Each structure stands twice: as structure tokens, then as C-alpha cells.
């Protein structure tokens, strides 16, 4: 196979993710780096984030004025308005902010009251992502969520009425016993609030979660796989009828109001993550931070918070690009693939593409490489075929020096 080259994404990183690990409770399905909330430590974390941002701006990452900033968690909405203002101010001073930048905050329904909405608006948040999961009280209680259906409705009501900016609501599908009617009920309830953006996540049992332990002990913890196609249809069809575009496997929006930050991931472009457990990708590296808050705090003022760092080979990057890009309705612009990987990328994938084209599993049209409309639910299978036929994968297994950023 011809070696390909990776010239990297088109521009310097201009997207930052900030991880705030605190949560009131841990949800049974959650595998993120989280820990029980401790307001006394919020300031300590924000200081560390400021320090990490300072290191990042001094390192040769070439971070450009931010186009997108995403505060995720955990529950970043737990930060007091003043502290949130300070953090955003520091990041803005450090990196600069492009006009019209998208600044997203993740929030739980419990956190969404009128005062909070006003303060978030004031500190510059432009977009909210509200974790509803479901309106069913029993299911929410089972997941260990802090809200119930009533709280969720009230929160959405407030957001719909008072929040002037962009917003999104998350639903979770595939819980134990869930029927297509249950999915349709949730979707219908959500659409009543006219959200500009809806994300629907299939419940996945991640390792080291409560659900994973239950499953290992022999309990059924999720809807059987055989029911997934029907559950999928139960949300994708009503959303489509209501005028939402499924622009990524799990993400839908109206009037083009996509998440700009997440599109950076799906374009396999560069981004910098700050905070415990955050991941970063800046050509040609990929790294992630210590997940443990204490270790992160110690490391950030010492050798740096990176716990692993690798140089991603061009072949592996190409597969990454396909794996994330084919999840989107647009697909991948071939002109960008040609620029980034040189036109040799087609050869690098061996015969795999030809067969997939022939089978109609992959399309190339209008300058884009994409799936047929029916292909989204099976993109993992497709990627497995692409990867299997690809000559080399996974880079050289080289670990880059865990450097100071």
C-alpha cells in the first residue's frame, strides 16, 4: 500500500472543551470522569483550569481565537455564576473569542431556574444542552437521575420561554423494558417545547458503570438488541416528520441550528480539552488528561496533566476521519480528503471502497463521500469492513513524549 500523508485539518485549533467533573449523584450509566459535588473545591478546579489554559496557550498548539467553547461534565451548571464568569473570562483572555462564538453549557433540569438562565446569559453562554433522558419518573429514578418528569417539563418550559439562545435536549433510548410507544411518548413530550436541537442517545453499557456491574451479575439492564431497530424508528420518524434533520447519527436540528462544537469532532479537526479526563487532538497528536481530580490538580501545576499522548499515523487518522465523518448526513468532502491525505487515500483503503460502492453501502456524490440515507444505523459495521480491508491501522504504536503543555 502506498503510504499516505496527513497534512492535518485545515486550520489551527479554535475549539476548547472544558470538563467540570462534579455531579450531585452518579447516574447508573455514566462512565465520564465525575465525582460527588463539593462546592468547596470548585474554586480549586477553576484555578487549575486557568493554569492548564495558560500552559496550553504557551505551548506550540497555535490555538486561534475560539469559535466554539463547550462546558461539559459532570455538571458544569453547578458552578456558581461568579465562578463561571471568572472561568469564561480567563479563557477569553487567554485564547481570544471570535465574534459569534458558540459557548455551550451542559445543564440538568434541576439546575434550570429563572435566575440561573439569566446569569448564564449574562456570562456569555450562547447555547444550553439540557439532559432530559426521559420523562418517565420510574426510569429516571432507576438511573439515579436527580430530576423527575415534572421537573424536566418545568425546566424545558422555562428554557423555551425565557432562554433566547440556542438550546438542545438529550433523550436516552434503550432502557430496560422500553417499548417503541415509550420512545414516541418521550419524543412527543419533548417536541411540545419546540427545541431547536435534539440529541437521542442509545443506552450503551460502558465498563465500570453501575449498569455494567449489574449486567456482569447476570441482570438484564437494557432493552434487548433485537428491539433497537424498532426503538430507533420510534424516534427518527417523528423527528423527521416534525422537520428535524438528522445531521449526525444521534443529533437532529431544525433550521440548520447544528452544534458547531460537535461538528469539529466529526470533521476530525483539532480541539483542546481542559480539565480532568478531557481529550485533545492537535495534529498530529492525540492526548488525554488524568481522570482523577486530585492527580489532575497535582499534575497541572507540575509536569502537566497529560496521562497519555500518541502520534496518530496518517492511516489511523484517515480511518478516524471516515469513522466520524460517515456518521454525518453530509459525509466527508472529497476535496478535503484529497487535501488532507493526498488523493492516495483511496488506494490506502484497498479494495474496500469499491466493494462498498458496488453494494450501495457507500455513495460518492456532489463531492461528498457519504452513506445512503438508510445507512446511519449500521455505520459501525460499514467501518469495520473498511478497516479490515485497510492495509495499516493504529499508527506505529508510538507514544509521543508526554509533554508539558
Amino acid at each position, binding site marked *: 500500500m502506498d503510504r499516505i500523508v496527513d497534512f492535518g485539518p485545515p486550520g489551527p485549533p479554535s475549539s476548547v*472543551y472544558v470538563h467540570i467533573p462534579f455531579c450531585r449523584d452518579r447516574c447508573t450509566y455514566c462512565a465520564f470522569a465525575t465525582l460527588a459535588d463539593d462546592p468547596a473545591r470548585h474554586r480549586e478546579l477553576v484555578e487549575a483550569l486557568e493554569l492548564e489554559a495558560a500552559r496550553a496557550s504557551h505551548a506550540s498548539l497555535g490555538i486561534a481565537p475560539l469559535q466554539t467553547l463547550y462546558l461539559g461534565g459532570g455538571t458544569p451548571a453547578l458552578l456558581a455564576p461568579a465562578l463561571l464568569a471568572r472561568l469564561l473570562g480567563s479563557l477569553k483572555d487567554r485564547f481570544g473569542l471570535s465574534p459569534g462564538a458558540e459557548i455551550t453549557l451542559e445543564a440538568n433540569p434541576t439546575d434550570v431556574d429563572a435566575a440561573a438562565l439569566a446569569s448564564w446569559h449574562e456570562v456569555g453562554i450562547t447555547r444550553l444542552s439540557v439532559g432530559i433522558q426521559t420523562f418517565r419518573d420510574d426510569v429516571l429514578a432507576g438511573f439515579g437521575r436527580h430530576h423527575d418528569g415534572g421537573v424536566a417539563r418545568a425546566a424545558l418550559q422555562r428554557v423555551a420561554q425565557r432562554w433566547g439562545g440556542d438550546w438542545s435536549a438529550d433523550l436516552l433510548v434503550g432502557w430496560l423494558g422500553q417499548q417503541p410507544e415509550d420512545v414516541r411518548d418521550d419524543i412527543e413530550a419533548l417536541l411540545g417545547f419546540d427545541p431547536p436541537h435534539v440529541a*437521542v*442517545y*442509545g443506552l*450503551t453499557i460502558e465498563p465500570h458503570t453501575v449498569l455494567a456491574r449489574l449486567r456482569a451479575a447476570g441482570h438484564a439492564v437494557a432493552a434487548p438488541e433485537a428491539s*433497537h*431497530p424498532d426503538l*430507533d424508528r420510534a424516534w427518527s420518524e417523528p423527528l423527521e416528520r416534525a422537520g428535524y434533520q438528522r445531521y*449526525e*447519527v*444521534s443529533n437532529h436540528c431544525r433550521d440548520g441550528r447544528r452544534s458547531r462544537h*460537535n461538528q469539529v*469532532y*466529526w470533521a*476530525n479537526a483539532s*480541539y483542546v*480539552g481542559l480539565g480532568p*479526563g*478531557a*481529550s*485533545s*487532538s492537535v495534529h498530529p497528536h*492525540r492526548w*488525554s488528561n488524568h481522570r482523577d481530580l486530585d492527580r489532575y490538580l497535582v499534575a497541572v501545576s507540575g509536569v502537566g496533566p497529560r496521562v497519555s499522548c*500518541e502520534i496518530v499515523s496518517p492511516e*489511523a487518522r484517515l*480511518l*478516524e476521519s471516515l*469513522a*466520524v465523518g460517515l*456518521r454525518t448526513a453530509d459525509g466527508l468532502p472529497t476535496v478535503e480528503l484529497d487535501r488532507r491525505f493526498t488523493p492516495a487515500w483511496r488506494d490506502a483503503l484497498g479494495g474496500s471502497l469499491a*466493494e*462498498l460502492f*458496488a*453494494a*450501495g*453501502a457507500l455513495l460518492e456524490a456532489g463531492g461528498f463521500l457519504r452513506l445512503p440515507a438508510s*445507512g*446511519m*444505523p*449500521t*455505520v*459501525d*459495521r*460499514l*467501518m*469495520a*469492513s473498511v*478497516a*479490515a480491508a*485497510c492495509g495499516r*491501522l*493504529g499508527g506505529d504504536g508510538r507514544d509521543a513524549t508526554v509533554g508539558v503543555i
Partner: protein
Amino acid sequence: MKQELIRNFSIIAHIDHGKSTLADRLLELTRTVELRDKRAQLLDSMDLERERGITIKAAAASMEYEKDGQSYRLNLIDTPGHVDFNYEVERSLQACEGALLLVDATQGVEAQTVHNTVLADNAGLTIIPVINKIDVGSARPEAVSEEIENVLTIERERCIGVSAKTGEGVLALLDRIVDEIPPPAGNPEGTLRALIYDAEFNDYRGVIVHVRIVDGSLNAGDRIRMKAGGTRHEALELGLFRPQMVPCKTLGTGEVGYLIANIKTLADVRVGDTVMLDKDSTSVALPGYRPARSMVFCGIYPTANKDFDILRTALERLQLNDAAFTFAPETSDALGFGFRCGFLGLLHMEIVQERLERESHVDIVQTAPNVTYEVVLKDGTIRRLDSPSQLPDVMQVEALREPMVKLDIVTPDEHIGSIMKLAIERRGKFLHREYLGPGRVIIGFRIPLSEIIFDFFDRLKSATRGYATMDYEFDGFDVDDLVKMRILVNGEEVDALSAIVHRDQASPKGRSIIKVLRKEIPRHLFKVALQAAIGGKIVAREDIAPLRKDVTSKCYGGDISRKRKLLEKQKAGKKRMKMVGSVEIPQKAFFAVLKGPDD
């Protein structure tokens, strides 16, 4: 060593009856090896042999044993323990004058015991019946000696009880070896005739030939010739197995040892051949030599076509060490370029496959095994088929013949019914049934080899709760109503999956093959249609419904490298897949088709 002080013997036994343990004890008690050198089961030198507890290659050990003030040399020739290596067993026995017939006191006479006793008898050996494991609580030496008398017609008084594990009775056994096994005959003044009873390949020394000197003597430096092979060599080094190789200057009449003669490949050395002096053109070959003949074949293909040359090199290397293994290039429409490989039997095939995987790191696809068929053409010529895909056009074929075996099964009598049912399902014809002793019978069948090469033994074991044992020998070719069954995947014939089956069984076999394939082939993004056809007639069909959903829901910053690692893992899993058109068929499927669905 004087001829009359030499005793050459082997141990014949059913698998697991304690042959290797007894060999270890003999080596220890004669101080051939010190206890501190001891690895469990000294004579099984390949890892595979030790892991599986079977002997694949013959091995030998020379021991010194003193009796009544006289020192004797006892040469133990360890024979392979499986029917696949029957020919090697015969040759090894020919190098001996006696055999220890080892029977487990808790198990009794088994199919292989009977079979091996017949071989030893035919070779004219003095047999000492040895009942092993007398220290075990469930031992029933009396009943076992009665079985030995009834079935093998060896007087029960001649049986000797030992415990190879504790060493009990083993010294008495050594005395009986000296007293009862005759010293080698043969003419020490005659011209050299040595029997090649085994050979192995060593990376540094080339071929190491195991020989038994029948007449005359062999000296280091002699110019020698292989009678059947015709090649000429110089005897560079001679020696004894103790059991490691110890060089000596001369091997005299009746002695057993090794010969190194700068021979580069095992293909130049044929087990059963006669070694003679090059200058001596008159001497007559020792009887019994015949080239090893493969009875079971399968296709071995690289998963990636570019690995063809690497695979060829790997097969050549294996053949260096295993002259009975044969291979020739073949092309399959479905699998591309690969090799048709021939084996002595099923176990031999498994061993080769395992060694190939361990030693070569090539990913291979192996097709289901088949036997050799003989096709009689309309013009009267007879051709051998190593693969169903070689079957000529049906218009040219007068008849198809398949290899038959005589099969002996030893079992507790309560399982006779289920064994009869199994054998008859497999087209077996009942031949005879005799009681070995109370409650144990031996049943004989004549049955097509193709019916027992795959899962027969597993089925037999499950039908008899593990109690039955079996052994078989080749018994000619029979004409039967055989047809070729083609398997189509999405309308495309997969030649590597086609099989020759009996017409009466075609429909059920077709259905069962399709059922297995349906289980083994993963779901695709499109519907996969599986069909079995005899001629133009579809006898079975099943569809694999397309995959409807498998995508993981979330994919954000931290998920991307995870996603890539998952792809890497899947890629490794897909190494054992073969693309047929746009359908991925796992290696397992090619092998599983003959097995039939699990019931």
C-alpha cells in the same frame, strides 16, 4: 555390544494408558537419566506432544540394565500413538523383537489395544502383556487379564502388573524384558542392511535418520545409499539415543541409533527404506517399504492473497519435518490461490494446522476436510480426486468410488444400540460383535472413511458417555451413488464449500450445511442468500437478514480514539474472514460445514 546382549522393544498402548509414564520409569530405574534431568514424559519432544499427551513422532532410548552380573542394552523404540501414523507404527515395530502391551487396569482392552496387538503379532514380536495402574483404587487387574486372554489370546498368566507412576513392578518387568524378548537375529558378518524407522529434521544438523541395523554394521565415514530413494551420502555421525544423542563410531547388528549424513530434506529419506553401503549393489531391500499415502485432504488458503508466498514457505518448512504431509498449489474461485494439502488422517491434519499457526504467523483459511475419491471415467481410466472441485463433468463419469475402512469400536454393552444407530446413519455395515469380558464388547463395521473423518469420534463419545474407543484401517474403494453438492452464496458458487455426498443424504446434508453457514456467517448490510444445489436443483435455502442497527450512539472528542481502537480490534477479528464477492465468510464456516448443526 554383543548381539545377544541387546533387546529391542517398543511399548504399544491405547492413548492415556500410561505409555510415556512407563517409559520415564524405565529410563529412571536403569539410570539412563538422573532424576534431576527429568522433564515429565521424556520421550515426547514436541510441545504439541506434551500438551496433547500423545506421541506423534517415534523416539528412542538406549538403556543399560544389569541382570545376574551381565549388562544388557535395552533399546526402547517409542511408537506414535495414533491410527493416523499406522505406517510409522508398523515400521517402528519392525525394528523390534518384542513389545510391551500396556493396558490400563482401570480401563481394560480398548480398540487401539486390539489394533496394535495385531500389528505386533504380524511383525512376529514377542508380546509381554503389562497391566498398568495397579495402584489405583478402581483397578481390576483380574478382569483385565481375562479380557487380554479372551480378546488377544494371550494367556492371562503371562500378564505382569505394574504401576508406572510409583515404579511398582517395573524392575520385575525389566527382568522379563531380558529373559523373554529374544536378542536380535541378523548376520553380523553380512553386508550392511539398516531399516529407517523414522527421521526428523533438525535446523542445525539436517535430517537425523533413525535406524535399526538388521545385518552387518555401519561405521562413521561409510559411503551409503538409500535403496528406494536412490540418494547417496556419507555417514558423518552415528550414535545412540540416551535419550539425547550420544555419538559413537559403529552401530553393530541389532543395534538402534541415529545417522547424520548431511541430508538436507526429509523428502530424501523415506521411512521403511533400507540403508546400504554404496559400494554394495547386490543386497536386497528389507521388506515392507511403501510410500506414505495421504487419505484426507483439505484446502489451506492465506486470508490475504498477498501472503501466498509466505504460506508456501511455511508449508515447505513443515514438510521438512513431516514427510507424510503433502501439498500442491490449487486455485479456488472463492478463495483465490492456495494449497491442497494431504494428511494421513484427521489428527495429522489438526497437528499440521496447529504447527502452521504456531510457527508461521500466517492467517489461513482452511476448508472442510475430504477424503480421496476415485473417479472412473467413461473411457475406463481411473483418476484420483483430492478435492470435490476436481470432479469432471458428470457426462464423463462412469462411477465414483470412495475409500472404505474397517472400524472397530470397543464399548460397554449398554451402548450397543446407540452405536449401531450412529454407524448405520453413517452408512456403516455391521460386520461382527464379540464380548471382551462381562459387559464389554468389540463391534466391527465397514464404513466409508468420509463418514468418520469429521465428527464421528465426538458423536461416538457423546453416545457412550465417553466410554467407547475406536480404531480403523483402510479397506479399499467402493462404488456408491455419490453426487457433488454445490453451495451458493448470493448466487455465487463457493467451490471451497462444495462436498461430495451420498445421493440419499443430499437433501438433509444440504439443509444442515446451510443451517451451519447461516449461523457462522455474520449479518451483512444486505441480505445474504445461502443455497445448496445438486446439479441444477436447489435442495436447501436460507437467508441471512441484513443488519439493521449496530451504531454506537455517542461520538465526541474523547470517543474518537476509543472508536479507532475498537476498529483495530475488529480488524484483528476479521483476519479470519474471507471475502466471497462482497460477503465475508469466517474461516470457521469453511470448517464447520461438515460438522452439521449442534443438536
